[in-house]
């Protein structure tokens, strides 16, 4: 028999109790996995908005709590394009409209000639050319069952679908695009764009150009990578904090559960621990055994919790509002995080019982009835 086998057999002694504790921790792990996947999805969506097509970086209004509140005068777009090192600057507007039951359909306002900058590839039909024309993403087209030639109501107005596009980004392909001017008018923000996409000339230094923009226009902020999302999306930062807080709570609640289980277990096994000490076991080995049991208990919950989290999110997405808004992305990072949390819960939750068991005097433990 190997030492880990002994640890496993000890856990299997009380199958119900071990299972219930594992399920308790699994729920915490599931929460972490689900939240992590949703966060990754949201970040990826934001990244999709901020780093579209050929753009090297994007520019938004500084100090806004959400990108949607960003408002940049159209003159600025030309000024940015005139800067040294900048090949092209394109202004765009983005908002959400309810479309056929999906309340949050991403809606872009872009000049027809700038569509290529977004990596938009028309797979069917042609681009919009009139005020009341729009193109829709491949995925949205399938979701709502609309194709070229059909009509679509946006706000109070009716549009003709002239084309279906794909960009390769699921986030965009679930959206639609129409002329910038029309969307500005619908949103009552004539003369303003929300975001400016900048493509650099070959060999231009991105840091220098960004620095020049932020220095020249204190009301603007540049976003080069997803790590800088916080500059224009405080909500994402808040969610990140919530995610962290939930993880801590999971550790705390899970940890208390594990501590409770393990204390009960050593209480029942006091005599047995006395016997182990009597046959020569050192304190350290008793400590390793109990700690090993608590950690194994928690590590069991990683696969269970991950599956729960995975299917839980899928279930959540069946709801049309949630499903339209969020696209979870399960990254290795999320599962690694779940594993680390489980490991920590086992270690933290098991330490006190293990310490207590190791401190038992063998003589007293053997006298224990």
């Amino acid at each position, binding site marked *: *028999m190997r030492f880990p086998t002994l640890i496993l057999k000890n856990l299997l*002694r009380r199958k119900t109790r071990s299972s219930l504790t594992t399920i308790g921790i699994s729920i915490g792990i599931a929460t972490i996995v689900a939240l992590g996947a949703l966060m990754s999805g949201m970040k990826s969506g934001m990244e999709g908005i901020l780093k579209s097509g050929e753009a090297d970086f994007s520019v938004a209004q500084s100090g806004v709590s959400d990108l949607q509140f960003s408002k940049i005068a159209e003159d600025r777009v030309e000024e940015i394009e005139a800067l040294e090192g900048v090949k092209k600057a394109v202004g765009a507007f983005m908002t959400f409209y309810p479309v056929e039951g999906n309340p949050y359909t991403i809606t872009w306002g872009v000049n027809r000639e700038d569509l290529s900058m977004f990596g938009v590839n028309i797979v069917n039909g042609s681009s919009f050319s009139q005020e009341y024309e729009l193109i829709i993403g491949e995925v949205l087209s399938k979701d709502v069952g609309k194709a070229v030639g059909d009509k679509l109501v946006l706000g109070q107005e009716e549009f003709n679908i002239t084309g279906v596009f794909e960009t390769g980004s699921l986030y965009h392909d679930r959206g639609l695009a129409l002329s910038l001017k029309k969307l500005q008018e619908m949103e009552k923000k004539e003369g303003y764009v929300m975001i400016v996409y900048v493509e650099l000339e070959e060999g231009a230094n991105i840091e220098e150009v960004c620095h020049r923009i932020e220095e020249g226009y204190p009301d603007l902020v540049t976003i080069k990578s997803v790590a800088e999302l916080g500059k224009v999306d405080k909500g994402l930062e808040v969610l990140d904090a919530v995610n962290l807080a939930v993880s801590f709570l999971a550790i705390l609640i899970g940890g208390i559960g594990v501590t409770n289980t393990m204390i009960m277990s050593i209480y029942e096994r006091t005599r047995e621990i006395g016997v182990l000490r009597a*046959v020569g076991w050192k304190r350290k080995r008793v400590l390793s055994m109990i700690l090993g049991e608590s950690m194994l208990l928690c590590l069991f919950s990683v696969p269970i919790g991950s599956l729960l989290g995975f299917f839980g999110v899928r279930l959540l997405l069946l709801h049309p509002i949630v499903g339209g808004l969020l696209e979870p992305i399960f990254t290795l990072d999320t599962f690694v995080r779940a594993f680390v949390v489980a490991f920590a819960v086992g270690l933290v939750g098991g330490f006190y019982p293990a310490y207590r068991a190791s401190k038992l005097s*063998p003589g007293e433990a053997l006298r224990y009835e």
Partner: protein
Amino acid sequence: MNKMVITKNLVKTFEEGRVKALDGVNLEVREGEFITIMGPSGSGKSTLLNIIGALDRPTSGKVTVDGVDLSKVKNLDEVRAKKIGFVFQLHNLLPVLTARENVEVPMFELGLSHKERVRRAKEFLRLVGLEERLDFVPTKLSGGERQRVAIARALANNPKIILADEPTGNLDSKSGDEVVQLLQKLNKEGRTIILVTHDEEIAAHANVIYHMRDGKILKHRPSPANQELA
């Protein structure tokens, strides 16, 4: 012959001195001797055995086991692991482990390989006549068989002394006899045996019988078996 156990003026009190379990016990056990300690409940037999077995420390007095003064040893685990084998009244086997695995338990501290642990456990179980029961869990074994597994476990680390605290207390007389015969066999192989018992018949198998009362050793006498030998 060498002295295996020497106790000098052993005193052990409990509950902050209100209960005196041992009151100046002097005992000498030679290497290879088989002694029994008898006495009524609460006379201090088990307390004495626990102190000799390095499970408890005395309140005052001195214990030497196989030449080692236990009061000078900071960590008694090692003494227990290398010199002493315990057999208790209740077999105290781990219920989830098989007979073989139970015998392996003490060997974790010896740094033996997995293969070596298995080999030794089998060997000791053969010695106690349980080679057919290697993979049985305690609930599938009879009381006598369980106690024999416990004896095999006590032998796991090849100790010089076996301390047995009423090992036949929960057994029928036939199983009890088997256990005592096994202890005698181990004694003949050179191991020192200290056996605590209530049972005169069991005690009679030893070389010397000690009687305890109120934490004191009252008298000792050679056992009938020993007289026959003489």
